């Protein structure tokens, strides 16, 4: 009798695990935090994350370096080591990463003059060299720039959101506290 109980138990466990997984997934898909209403944020070459289509991306940025059907599209930048990137999960672009070099003649002042000082600063691996991630979550724009000078390394464009959601989705390697590791 005991053996039967154990067997039944194992079968039930398996079933429950599946049910549990299903419910967990359901719970995950219902975020507890209210998702901000997507609104149009900053744009890059007429491309607005959350609005522009894959076709718009290809039309504005040209032929990607990789397969144009990919979720992550790479485009030639002035940096031979790093491409511009666009994330297009289905047919809508949700994130664009613009790589800046000295040739591009862009500075942090181009951003701060338009959007003001960034409300959030996140620290990442380049912070030991003076480069932090400055985020305007509600404006849909962030940049990696120098702490003292106007040198700019990257500009990120995304759908306006909260800082928590931004960190979770796009800045996993960044922290709100500076913790240098060398």
């Amino acid at each position, binding site marked *: 009798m005991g053996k039967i109980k154990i067997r039944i138990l194992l079968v039930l466990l398996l079933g429950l695990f599946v049910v549990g997984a299903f419910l967990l997934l359901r719970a995950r898909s219902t975020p507890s935090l209210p998702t901000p209403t997507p609104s149009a944020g900053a744009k890059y070459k007429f491309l607005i994350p959350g609005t522009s289509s894959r076709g718009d991306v290809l039309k504005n940025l040209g032929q990607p370096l990789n397969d144009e059907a990919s979720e992550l599209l790479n485009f030639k930048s002035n940096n031979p*080591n790093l491409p511009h*990137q666009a994330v297009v999960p289905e047919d809508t672009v949700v994130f664009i990463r613009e790589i800046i070099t000295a040739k591009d003649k862009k500075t942090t002042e181009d951003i701060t003059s338009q959007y003001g000082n960034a409300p959030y600063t996140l620290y990442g691996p380049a912070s030991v*060299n003076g480069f932090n991630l400055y985020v305007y979550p509600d404006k849909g724009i962030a940049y990696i720039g120098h702490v003292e000078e106007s040198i700019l390394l990257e500009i990120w464009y995304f759908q306006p959101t909260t800082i928590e959601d931004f960190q979770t989705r796009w800045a996993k390697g960044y922290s709100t506290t500076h913790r240098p590791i060398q």
Partner: protein
Amino acid sequence: MAKEITIDIETARRLLFILSLEGDVKREEIEWALGIIHQIPGYESITLTKAVQDRALKEILVAIAAEQISPTTPKDLETLIEDAQKREAALEAAEKTGEKRTEEFIAAAEKAAKTKAQTKTPPVPPEPQAAAPETAAPSPTEAPVSLGIKITPEAGKVLQKVTSRIATAPFRAAVSFAGPTLTADEPGRAAALSLLARGVTSEHVEKKLGEVDTKSQEKLQSLVKAIKAEEQFFSVQTRLLKQAFPVKEITFLLSPESGLTQTQVAIFFKPQERGGFEAVPRRSFFGDLANRFGSQLFGKASSNFLKKGAEKVATKVAGKVATKLATEAATTAVAAATGPPGWVTKVIAWLATEIGPKVLGWIKKHFKDILGVSLVAGGVLVGGGAGMAVALGGGLIWLGGAGLTTAGQYAGGFLSFFVSNLLIPAFAKPLLIILISVPVTVALILFIINSGAYVVPPSSSSVLEENPFIGVVKEVEPAGPFENSNLPVSVSYAITVTAKRGTITNISFEHKCEAIAEKGTSPCPAPLPETTPLEISPVEPYVYTYTQTYSGASYRDSLVINTFTVTADTSETTGSSASGVASIIIGNPPTGCYNIAGTWPANERAAIMAAVSNLIGGSPTYVARLCAAYSQVNLYYDPPKVCGAWGCAPGGNVIYFNSAGLGNTHNATYILAHESGHVLSYGSPNLYQAYLAFPGTLGELPVCTYGGGEPAEGFAEAIARFAVGSSCLANEPNNKLFVETYIFR
């Protein structure tokens, strides 16, 4: 034509698991892993050591494991696996008959994997794996360090090891998760427990006391006492831990010369302000994840358990202790889990909303069952022998108590449901158990994976590489520093040349002396031996001694650097060179914009002054660029503020040092040059921007094995390697070209 094949999820997970163990696996496992990794574009000839350190590779594998991407490989994976299986039998036989060391197996495996590599596909730039720059998450506050411990494992019985590791898993989890909390309250205990959890006993530490200076001995004595106290409190765990992690010996690592990179050190210690030591365990990729997750969930509870557990544990019978501890620790842990992150929060929140505020009390009441489900599920998911052992062990723990009865009740409840359609009462309890078990299971899986990563990999590569064939040591007596009033200064030099691997021939010597002073650098006498030996054998080192007197105004406020270089042929190479350097300080040599600030111990002060003068003399343009960025760069001796192993430039014009990197002028110069690289970037960000865009620099990361894939570290490391003339920079030609062109010229 080669069959196109996808690296499947299971293979990616297995590869990640092997990489997380950093070589502490059988040779055939490594060979199998390398065989597959070598098929990934861009990783055709990567070594195991580099693969372990390569964060980008791990991210690719994580992405595959998470079904985010599916890169194809040009070779048939099944064939590779078949090959590995065929080799297995032969290897088993070899292991049984010989006493081959793991290092030899790994070296042979790497060589075999390289040989097998088929014609390379054209190099393809590694495609970014994620949308956002998935730069490395900073490790948990890596603490300042001054002493590292390398643990050399001893071979043991595999089954005994596995079962003991499972039995001690709750204890080790509690130690690991309690780390930050316990360190803040009782750093001595935290250090002792960290070591004990890795199988290091008081006896191991005591044996090695004679190898450190008197000051360190006193501190380590307190550590020995602390470990002994824990051994008494946790006597059963200690016995099991010795079986789980048999330790052959430990080695104290006092400087970068130890020959290990930071990632290869099992545990670091930093001195406490009030004396004693604070432990900073070195964690693997998975270990870091596991510990962060576990610490957030169970940190406080685990700390309480360790604080309160001693008395309880001492009175328990061995067989019951593991179960009891597991249950108690985990019960307390979940009861305290008030603020877990992410999806765990959502699950808990959902439960709290749906089931009501009494749910936590219910969880506590049923935790033994939750733990049982977690162990079974965790073991099954991890798979393999160890995983199944966990499953079996967990099942026994669970069913061995009241769990079996409860299980029957669950089954009965479900039968009732099927018969009478009374869904809620029968469904709720087991469902909740399963749901709560999921996060515990995840933590358990990660901890099991992490357990294997504590052992230092057998292979090593030096932070500051040395010539493998020729050893040159130059010593000076007295070493100084001297005052200007001591001039003329007379010192004796002893140069010892050693043939490390075999007899060296065709020998030539070069001797150079420079006095670096405010007015400039001037040559000084550097005599050569009257005769040069025809050969030097490994059994008889060549020793050359001479006495030199320095007099005159040119030596006032100067650093006198002597470099003796030996060039010779070996059985494997021709024209191999090695140098030995000795320096003395007279008065106050020029320090450029470097300001040696705060209080420094005498030896460290002498070392950093020598390094400063060395850098100014050897790399004047680099120092000039630095001084153009900051009129003053402050150098502090402040071990608690050191954020790496040997130094820290936290931002701006400040650098912190500890004693570890200041053992000799060469090391001190290297550390100073590296940290100054961060300062330079901070003060001249356009240089760092230029580095990022210089063709090929980022593709060569890590530079000389240091810094992983982080460009910020690559920038500083390339500068440091160039400053001290490391030959490894020849393997990173684009980095070398960049620093040569933009930093040193």
